């Protein structure tokens, strides 16, 4: 259970030589990545470079064929004698992935539930916690993302920025050790993007471990401790954010930054 917090030295994510295909397409070609507790890591790169797929493999939305994935010190996937990745039982994999929370590009809020119900659903059905115990936590999280007054609203009534902040609060309600963000602002107007980034910045200040796939260079520059740059299924740079933005080493990274300038 995530409540049994692993010690500070254990990496929250440790992926080693991960390979993944979609049919004939080799989307992850030997990716290795470690994220320490309290670290904020931005994953950058052109579209199709495998950023989102990597994130989705870390919380078992996709399975890998080769390599090893450890989440908070627990093994989600490891190679067997032939080198192919093996997974534990579905329920065990689910338990391991409870260390992770995920925020999606398209929010994926549950439209038939109110904002509060979206937050308390998983703690109640998955963790079997009592409603009376979960509601105060959910209300505190809504206050934290600035949406206390939307407690009983339906998701369809919210702006995109509000939806994404609810989605962040919903992920936090499961008290994960690391939050994975899959292009959280790509579906939003600049104005709404700002309010979501503000919330993410607050989380970073509270020392939340975050792995963020994003196109928001300002966020990566100002909030991330490290930048991981991916290209064609490989991590081609993995350096402190300040160093990366000062002088990207890799040719593709330089071209990428130039194209955004």
């Amino acid at each position, binding site marked *: 259970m995530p409540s049994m917090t692993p010690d500070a030295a254990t990496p929250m994510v440790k992926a080693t030589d991960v390979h993944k295909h979609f049919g004939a397409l080799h989307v992850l070609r030997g990716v290795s990545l470690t994220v320490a507790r309290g670290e904020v890591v931005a994953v950058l790169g052109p579209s199709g470079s495998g950023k989102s797929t990597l994130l989705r493999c870390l919380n078992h*939305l996709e399975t890998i064929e080769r390599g090893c994935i450890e989440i908070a010190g627990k093994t989600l996937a490891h190679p067997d004698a032939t080198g192919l990745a093996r997974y534990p039982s579905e329920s065990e994999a689910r338990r391991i992935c409870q260390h992770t929370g995920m925020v999606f590009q398209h929010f994926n809020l549950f439209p*038939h539930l109110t904002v509060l119900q979206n937050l308390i659903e998983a703690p109640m059905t*998955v963790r079997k916690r009592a409603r009376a115990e979960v509601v105060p936590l959910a209300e505190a999280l809504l206050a934290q993302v600035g949406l206390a007054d939307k407690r009983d609203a339906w998701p369809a009534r919210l702006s995109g920025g509000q939806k994404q902040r609810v989605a962040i609060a919903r992920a936090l309600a499961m008290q994960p050790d690391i939050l994975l963000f899959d292009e959280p602002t790509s579906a939003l107007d600049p104005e709404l993007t700002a309010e979501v980034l503000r919330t993410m910045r607050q989380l970073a200040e509270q020392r939340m471990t975050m792995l963020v796939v994003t196109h928001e260079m300002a966020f990566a520059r100002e909030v991330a401790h490290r930048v991981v740059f991916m290209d064609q299924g490989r991590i081609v740079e993995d350096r402190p954010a300040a160093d990366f933005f000062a002088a990207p080493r890799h040719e593709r990274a330089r071209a990428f930054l130039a194209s955004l300038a």
Partner: protein
Amino acid sequence: MDYLLRILPPLLDGAGVTLGLFVLTLALSLPLGLALALARLSRLAALRGAVSGFIWLMRGTPLMLQLLFVYYALPFVPVVGVRLPDYPSAVVAFTLNYAAYFAEILRAGIQSIDRGQYEGAKALGMSHAQTMRRIVMPQVWRISLPPLANETITLVKDTSIIYVLALNDLLRAARGIVQRDFSITPFVVAAAFYLLTTLVLTWVFQRLERHHAEHDA
């Protein structure tokens, strides 16, 4: 007026038969239809194929033929051969037939739910069963309500074909009196009864839809 009061008791008996068959069929075919819909989407190809075949059979032959088959032919079928009395025969035939239609409505509903809903639930640690029960099915019900209402209203009127098994439903009772008394009043009463039932169903489904539509901004 006197005449109306005189013909009402046999017509009400008929209405009882009609309503009974309607309620039983609905109560049995909805759960069966849901099971078929889920089986139709199963990962097991053999199960998918079997269910597709069953749905094809049920939608591809007349309900009256199925009714006659269950009553007259089923006793002679090896292994499953059972002789059912007339009323249970009707319930079985109607349930199988309507389950096939409900299955297709619910299958379409389930398939219309965005993949993001499953992923959102999975990322929160919910099992597949929890996701279906708590996240997917409540949305499927809402989407499926209008077509389910349609089928349900059709069912009320379809029940009238059980006259072929000489069951005294509302329409057969009315026809008996018409032939005896040379008056069309029983037909008018029967029509009024069907219309009333449909009105009540329409109202119930409207309430359900409105209840579920609340969250659609």
